[in-house]
């Protein structure tokens, strides 16, 4: 059950991004992936909803093998999984309200009135009341980011994948998004896979923490344990010491 990647290899041309990557995401928990820029974190999330295909290995969501899905089965899977894009990826020809409503229209489970209500609710969750009629280009970067979160949570999906949901936000908003992620777990039983560069935030929200390095998981465990890890690669990364990091890698 839940999300599982098994010995995944993913290359872009000559570049091997993931090289034997395996990860189990615990049900109804928050799993966080940390790792240096360009190490393949966004790639991992895209594999989970089949936006890209692995060269080798298996990607599972529940009982379904995503990398073998095609056509409409893939779209059915995506109804269960919300995706927060690293750069929001809002539809710029639509208002924020329309953006958030997009997935709801597609799902076709709610009436027009209920959709309106859900949109307002979702925007309130990220403290974006009153911007429904605005276009993405009229918002600040941080507001766009939060609108992207609202669009993903509006569907109340069983799984939520967050690609750096708090990068570039002010400390108050960071805490708010952290609380939102926790709330989705506690109130709705959502299983989350989060990518972040914000280690404090990672320690706060994670049930399980994993560090990606050179195409595979270098270390994983409860967030409290990472401080005691001896591996210089992990130590160098979390203490932000380039020398230690470079020697080790």
């Amino acid at each position, binding site marked *: 059950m839940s999300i599982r990647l098994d010995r995944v290899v993913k290359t872009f041309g000559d570049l091997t991004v993931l090289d034997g990557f395996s990860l189990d995401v615990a049900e109804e928990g928050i799993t966080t992936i940390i790792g240096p820029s360009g190490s393949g974190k966004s790639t991992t999330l895209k594999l989970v909803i089949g936006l890209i295909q692995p060269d080798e290995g298996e990607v599972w969501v529940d009982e379904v093998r995503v990398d073998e899905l095609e*056509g409409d089965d893939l*779209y059915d899977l*995506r109804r269960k999984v919300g995706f927060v*894009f690293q750069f929001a*990826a*809002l*539809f710029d020809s639509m208002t924020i309200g329309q953006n958030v409503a997009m*997935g709801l229209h*597609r*799902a076709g489970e709610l009436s027009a009135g209920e959709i309106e209500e859900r949109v307002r609710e979702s925007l309130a969750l990220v403290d974006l009341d009153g911007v429904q009629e605005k276009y993405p280009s009229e918002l600040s970067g941080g507001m766009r980011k939060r609108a992207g979160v609202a669009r993903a949570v509006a569907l109340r999906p069983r799984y939520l994948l967050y690609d750096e949901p708090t990068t570039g936000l002010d400390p108050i908003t960071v805490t708010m998004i952290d609380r939102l992620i926790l709330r989705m777990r506690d109130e709705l039983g959502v299983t989350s896979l989060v990518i972040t560069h914000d280690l404090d935030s990672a320690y706060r929200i994670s049930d399980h923490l994993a560090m990606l390095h050179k195409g595979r998981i270098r270390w994983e465990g409860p967030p409290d344990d990472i401080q005691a890890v001896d591996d210089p690669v992990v130590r160098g990364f979390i203490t932000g010491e380039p020398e230690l990091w470079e020697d080790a890698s």
Partner: protein
Amino acid sequence: MLASSLQAIGRTAIRGVGAVGQGGHLAVGAVRALRKVDIWGPLFVPQLAAVGVASVPIALFIAAFTGIVLAIQASYTFTGTVPLYFVGALVGKTIILELGPVLTGLALAGRVGANIAAELGTMRVTEQIDALESLAYDPVAYLVVPRVGAGLVMFPVVVGMSMAVGIAAGWITSLFLLDLSTPQFVRGLRLFFEPYDVQFALIKAASFGITVTGVGAFFGYTCSGGAAGVGRSTTRAVVGASMLILVLDAFWAAALL
């Protein structure tokens, strides 16, 4: 020197074959997406306006001036040798058979094809197409089908209007600049007129509509590489669609005339 140019040719050829493969893939996807009316249906009418109605001014502008020039040049060519009422025949025949569809097609390759390539290309590089997918929309049904469908429907309409305006412009020119009366112009117009010509022109126009929108959608949809990539895709869409229009034009002439 030779080796490197051979290499360059080889690379271009490989890219070309790859593009044909990708294009075929997209075309199959579009045909499959036809049954997802719930996705593309609501977007079809707005696209009819964007692809068709908005193209009318430029198309008619081109048609009017083509009609004027054809009439004047015909009378210049015919002076003394051919009866002047042949001006009507030449204007009608060339506009319906060739210039109406082709000039309109080329102009719309610039207007519509570039627009689609830039819009879809931007959506691709800003991950908006991925976002559509993540919200369980088939992006081919959502973006490609309504645009290509609108091209198929609206190009014949726009070309039909262009032909009418082009001929009317030729007629007015004949009245005021050449010493030709309305009955004379109409006599010439009817001399070689075949209803089949109009059918032929509209079939061509429909094929140009699919080509311009399809090529634009293809280069936009497969775009990569940021703003520069969008620029590249847009250029390729216009050049590619224009070339295909001329090739198709020759094909239809050989196949249907």
